[in-house]
């Protein structure tokens, strides 16, 4: 019995939970000022998140999946990507979307139940969020294949949850990516839970990063609550992909501090104690500690940032609440580029009924 193929999975952390440096600082972070944009992005994400939940509570937003505690992953991914790259996100990746230039207004429109929220004014080629768990990685593989065929120095980045790694579509996509050596980076946002199912239910695999072994390309773990590490690991993976060096699977280990969504009550299935422990590890505090210790962040900076974020999200919420819904015919207007006769007839009928209503 001979060993024919050895593999191993690395793990990266750079800033420890207490804010101390625990690994090799990447270039961008040598000067603590380089970390400030990441910190700002995380705080902005959390501000949005809190507002979205508040809007839901008061009946003014639909079901919303909070990303509380996962802000480092989104901020790190967005920093790693170039504008011309394409993000193919899951529903909880609000942070990455904000970083990509999707506006808080658009996000509120979407979660408020209006399709126009996915007509992103910024990243025009980014995909809308996938509500279907783990069915979107093939889209990212297709996007990456288009880039490869056209020999463009662009990269597709797909984000998905720990639960989504149990889906066949996820596997087919990474397997194809390995076979075709596509410019694709897949980031598993392992927040330990998939609704009520803890990580252990999803797979007997010791790490989720090792799923890449099945596809023949590198996989690695990163402390998903360490935004510096996430940004670093993701940047390296994205740049490898851009250089034609193939796909990477990244497992960002984080924790879902909130309920699954605004219509879930996580106390039914998980211990408060676990959540409390996880709070000690959350991503924003550690970077604040790091920046403060480095003398790069003051109380005034903090207050300024919070006020700025609150003001931005306030404006977005106002704009969202002031935007009237679409008329009934909107349902038919983007079904096809040209409306076939049956659709046209139904559209007219719906409009007639609409008038009758008024």
């Amino acid at each position, binding site marked *: 019995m001979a060993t024919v193929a050895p593999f191993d999975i690395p793990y990266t952390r750079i800033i420890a939970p207490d804010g101390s440096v625990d690994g090799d600082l990447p270039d961008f972070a040598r000067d603590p000022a380089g970390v400030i944009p990441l910190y700002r992005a995380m705080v902005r994400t959390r501000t949005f998140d809190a507002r979205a939940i508040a809007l839901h509570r008061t009946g003014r937003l*639909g*079901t919303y999946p909070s990303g509380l505690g996962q802000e480092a992953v989104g901020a790190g991914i967005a920093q790693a990507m170039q504008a011309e790259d394409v993000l193919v996100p899951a*529903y909880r990746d609000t942070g990455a979307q904000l970083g990509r230039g999707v506006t808080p207004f658009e996000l509120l429109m*979407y979660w*408020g*139940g*209006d*399709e126009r929220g996915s007509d992103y004014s910024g990243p025009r080629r980014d995909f809308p969020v996938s*509500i*279907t*768990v*783990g*069915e979107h990685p093939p889209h990212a593989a297709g996007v990456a294949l288009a880039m490869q065929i056209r020999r463009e120095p662009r990269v597709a980045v797909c984000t998905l949850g720990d*639960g*989504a790694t*149990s*889906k*066949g*579509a996820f596997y087919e996509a990474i397997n194809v990516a390995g076979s075709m050596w596509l410019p694709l980076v897949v980031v598993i946002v392992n927040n330990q839970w*998939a*609704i*009520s*199912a803890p990580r252990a*239910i*999803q*797979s007997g695999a010791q790490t989720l990063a090792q799923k890449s072994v099945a596809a023949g390309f590198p996989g690695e773990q990163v402390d998903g609550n360490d935004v510096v590490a996430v940004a670093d690991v993701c940047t390296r993976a994205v740049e490898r992909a851009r250089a034609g060096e193939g796909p990477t699977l990244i497992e960002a280990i984080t924790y879902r501090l909130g309920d699954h969504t605004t219509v*879930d009550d996580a106390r*039914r*299935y998980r211990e408060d104690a676990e959540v409390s422990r996880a709070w000690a590890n959350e991503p924003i505090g550690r970077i604040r500690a790091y920046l403060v210790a480095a003398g790069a962040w003051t109380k005034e900076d903090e207050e300024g940032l919070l006020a700025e974020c609150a003001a931005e999200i306030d404006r977005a919420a106002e704009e969202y609440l002031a935007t009237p*819904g*679409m008329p*009934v015919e*909107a*349902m*038919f207007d983007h*079904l096809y580029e040209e409306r076939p006769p*049956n*659709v046209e007839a*139904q559209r007219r009928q*719906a409009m007639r*009924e*609409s008038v*009758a*209503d008024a």
Partner: protein
Amino acid sequence: MPEVTFVQAVNQALMYEMGADERVVVLGEDVAATGGVFRATEGLVERYGADRVIDTPISETAIAGMGIGLAAEGMRPVVEIQFTGFIYPALDQLLNHASRLRNRTRGRLTCPMVLRAAGGGLIKSPEHHSDTPESLLAHVPGLKVVIPSTPAQAYGLLLAAIRDPDPVVVLETSRLYRALREDVPDDGVALPIGMSFVRREGTDLTLVTWGGMVPDVLAVADELAVDGIEAAVIDVASISPLDMGPILESVARTGRCVIVHEAARQAGFGAEIAARLADEGLTSLAAPVTRITGYDAIYPLARLEGRYVPDRRRITAAARKLLEYA
């Protein structure tokens, strides 16, 4: 006897049958620890243990496929697909495998599995949570498809589905889960699969529907009655096998038929009923067979969804229009 909601009736049926038949196992996403996202499976794991109530990974293909393996081995799996919009990755298992196993092996291996899924709109949920894919399933020989509309049907048809020696898909309408209450004796008595229920007698016009649209259609019939128009309401309940008897009989009397469903019109299941009427019932028809359905459009997000699903006004208007025919 306390009244129960639709979702409680589902739960009651599962409780009952797991107690009566130890071959029954429940598996799916979030069915055990949290008792289902709608609480349909609440308390099952506490009562029957983690061997028989199993939280699975998020793997719709494997969930359905494992149901087939369990069933072939003599178990009675009740698998849950959390929402109808996530049934599609399980379709290969349903169409190519579950429905065909008995025929392929000339009865040597069979597939007594149940697949439950919640769907239908108007609960302001995210995309893909409101699908009504019943006509896809009704096209598959070897499957049965039931769509209960009341707590009593939810109980009785689910029991029947579990006891059925063949694969049955049970489509539950999430907006009905807590909307209705009625007395449902927990007596283990099943309702027959393959039977249309006459929910209201009437001689002027026949309204045919199922599942989530039934309450609205009954309400329309009540409204019409105020004007002296007596509409029969037929709740198809099992779309496969389809029991056309009561529909044909009623239309023989009324000559007028409106079929109401929430799914898109084109190639929706209403077409099958209309086609049967155009064949077996043609001589009875005094007016065009009308379908009031969801539009042939993508089910919209929450702000517009109320305009997608047929509402009472659309149904009433169609009914009144049919009465204009001599």
